[in-house]
């Protein structure tokens, strides 16, 4: 395979396209809204109208606005329909040549769509995730060609460093620095691992990328492997994402077949193979040392660091671990240059970030915005605010390791440093909007229940501490807590933070600490004595004096 080979695939693909395409969202969100039935109905409606030669019905990845699924987009007209039912399809097909459909049209001029800045998601909803030709037609794998043929590994690392990209898995470690560390470690064997164990409840950015544009991840991994000197890659997909696993498997087979993975890629001396690994339900496997244990077929328990994976990772060999979104940013950075990427975003947080916007907000779904966009813009403009006449109370970011940004801080710029200053974190990009009906102590209890359930059980503070904090929070929710419970709660949180072996235990107290910081009065209301004075607790049974 060479550049002209890629171009002829792209040419054939563009040539074979029918004049009209009806793209039907086939990502999990819309599948849950029965988009499969819509797809089947669309195909038979096209056949019934005798339009198979001019209209293509395509299953594509996420179209973004999950709350209004199933979504259908008609190209080249650029019309999008929402909440489509099988009854709507006939009028959608009839309206392809002009005229209006009775199906509900999505407002593409809404800020939800216009404020997006798609880089990671630029192909999402556009390419057919199950056909490599569709990706190649959008210029796919050309960047890999240029990298392998025209750049040295050191130049690739420099370009990534220049972009200022930071790890999108949550911690925000500079990607270029990580690559440089692995590149300079001497070893007879190295590998590249894609962390696709997106376990944070309320986050589905990586799932969307895997289901919508899997080749993007493979191309990013191949570029990374070339840069650090690795010949083997692993993608660790969480067990809850079977569709993502299937799509990646198909993508790897297709890339193998075209020689875009394997030996002597693009006639260069570079070999690279990718193996898929599937998880089986363990949030802790998102932690990199636990993830490596799981890839090796073991219990997913973390081990102390150092040594870091860059020095001693899989089978004790240097290992580069990045998450899905990080790898998905790599091809555009190498295509357009690190300087281009660094011009987007804020001083310290470059580029864009994908968020899954959910909860008490009118428009839920996937958004990609430049770093530094304010939370107000995201919630009020793009999300169209809180529904049902309710007021905004807080926005939960960063999942079980994150915290709540109260409504009073809604003008915060969304970047790594600003969120950390408020006691929350960027995390992987889950964003749950909470209205004023939300019980914050109950929310803290939910996250602690999650952490206790997902604790691997290896170290004492996390194994027993999460269970004990959960029990204390139950007392607050039941309004039976005492003042000494509050003291103990804070002491346990401090212990877990400083003494736990891995990030799961160290960050488990964050939802409690953050709600204590902004909503302490709700904890105080959970204490029996104070509750009684507010009339929340029944009067003692004996009210009169004995005679």
């Amino acid at each position, binding site marked *: 395979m060479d550049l002209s080979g890629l171009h002829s695939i792209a040419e054939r693909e563009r040539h074979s396209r029918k004049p009209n395409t009806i793209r039907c969202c086939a990502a*999990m*969100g819309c*599948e*849950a*809204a029965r988009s499969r039935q819509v797809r089947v109905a669309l195909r038979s409606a096209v056949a019934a109208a005798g339009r198979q030669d001019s209209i293509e019905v395509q299953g594509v990845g996420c179209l973004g606005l*999950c*709350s209004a*699924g199933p979504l259908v987009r008609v190209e080249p007209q650029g019309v999008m329909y929402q909440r489509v039912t099988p009854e709507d399809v006939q009028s959608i097909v009839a309206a392809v040549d002009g005229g209006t459909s009775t199906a509900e049209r999505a407002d593409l001029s809404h800020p939800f769509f216009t404020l997006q800045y798609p880089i990671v998601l630029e192909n999402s909803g556009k390419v057919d995730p199950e056909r490599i030709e569709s990706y190649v037609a959008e210029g796919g794998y050309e960047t890999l060609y240029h990298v392998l043929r025209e750049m040295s590994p050191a130049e690739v690392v420099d370009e990534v460093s220049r972009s200022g990209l930071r790890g999108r898995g949550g911690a925000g470690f500079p990607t270029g620095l990580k690559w440089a560390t692995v590149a300079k470690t001497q070893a007879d064997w190295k590998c590249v691992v894609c962390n696709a164990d*997106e*376990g*944070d*409840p*309320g*986050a*589905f950015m990586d*799932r969307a990328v895997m289901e919508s544009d899997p080749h993007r991840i493979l191309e990013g991994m191949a570029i990374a492997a070339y840069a650090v000197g690795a010949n083997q890659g692993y993608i660790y997909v969480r*067990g*809850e*994402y079977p569709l993502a696993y299937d799509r990646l498997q198909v993508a790897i087979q297709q890339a193998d077949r075209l020689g875009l993975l394997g030996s002597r890629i693009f006639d260069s001396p570079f070999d690279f193979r990718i193996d898929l*690994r*599937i*998880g*089986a*339900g*363990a*949030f802790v496997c998102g932690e990199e040392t636990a993830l490596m244990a*799981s*890839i*090796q*077929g*073991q*219990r*997913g*328990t973390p081990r102390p660091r150092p040594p870091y994976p860059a020095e001693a990772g899989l089978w004790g060999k240097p290992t580069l671990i990045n998450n899905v979104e990080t790898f998905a940013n790599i091809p555009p950075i190498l295509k357009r240059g690190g300087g281009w990427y660094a011009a987007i975003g804020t001083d310290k947080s470059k580029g864009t970030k994908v968020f*899954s916007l*959910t*909860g*008490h907000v009118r428009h*839920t*779904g996937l958004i990609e915005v430049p770093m530094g966009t304010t939370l107000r813009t995201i919630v009020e403009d793009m999300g169209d605010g809180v529904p049902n006449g309710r007021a905004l109370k807080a926005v*939960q970011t960063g*999942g079980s390791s994150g915290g709540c940004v109260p409504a009073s801080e809604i003008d915060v710029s969304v970047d790594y440093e600003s969120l950390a200053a408020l006691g929350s974190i960027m995390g992987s990009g*889950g964003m*749950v909007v*909470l209205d004023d009906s*939300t019980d914050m102590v109950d*929310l803290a209890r*939910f*996250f602690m*229940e*999650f952490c*206790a*359930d*997902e604790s*691997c059980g290896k170290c004492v503070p996390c194994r027993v501490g999460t*269970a004990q904090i*959960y029990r204390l929070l139950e007392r607050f929710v039941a309004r039976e807590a005492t003042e000494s419970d509050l003291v103990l709660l804070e002491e346990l949180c401090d212990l877990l933070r400083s003494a736990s072996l891995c990030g799961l235990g160290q960050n488990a107290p964050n939802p409690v600490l953050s709600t204590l910081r902004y909503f302490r009065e709700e904890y105080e209301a959970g204490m029996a004595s104070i509750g009684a004075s507010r009339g929340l607790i029944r009067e003692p049974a004996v009210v009169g004096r004995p005679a």
Partner: protein
Amino acid sequence: MTIHVPPASVHPSAPAPVRAGDERFEPLDAVIKRHQGKPDSLIEILNSAQVRFGFLGGELLDFVARRMRLPSSYVFGVATFYHMFSLAPKGRHTCDVCMGTTCSVKGARRLLEGLERAMGIRAGETTADGRISLQLVRCPGTCGMAPVVYYDGVAISYETTASAVKRVKGWLDDGSERAP
């Protein structure tokens, strides 16, 4: 729901030894061979064993340990670490309630309690007639239309307690076993 506490007894009856060439597990043998019996493929193999046999019984784990040449306690340790592996048979139908953040703030806990009442079992249990297993899932990422419940693996969005109870009642009452 409550946090899992250790089982009262950790000693289920000892598995019967696998007879040489136990034909029930032969299809699994092919999978193990495809992975060349490498120890790092244990989770993949347990995954496909679960898909094939529905659950990971003692004899099955014993078979895997022998064929992969791994200590049986090691195989047991891995099989019980991951939540998606089940060591006991499941019901003919599964009803999985998402307990992600978004589903939770949108009422998944109430919905679950309603299902528990209607079915007379707790989350993680199977009805006495072996018909339905009620389970929790950890956010498969369909938060856009929370709360979400999975019936035999099919996701249904914007569920309410009433609609969920109606669906499982269909399984419980008429025995017609039709999909929701």
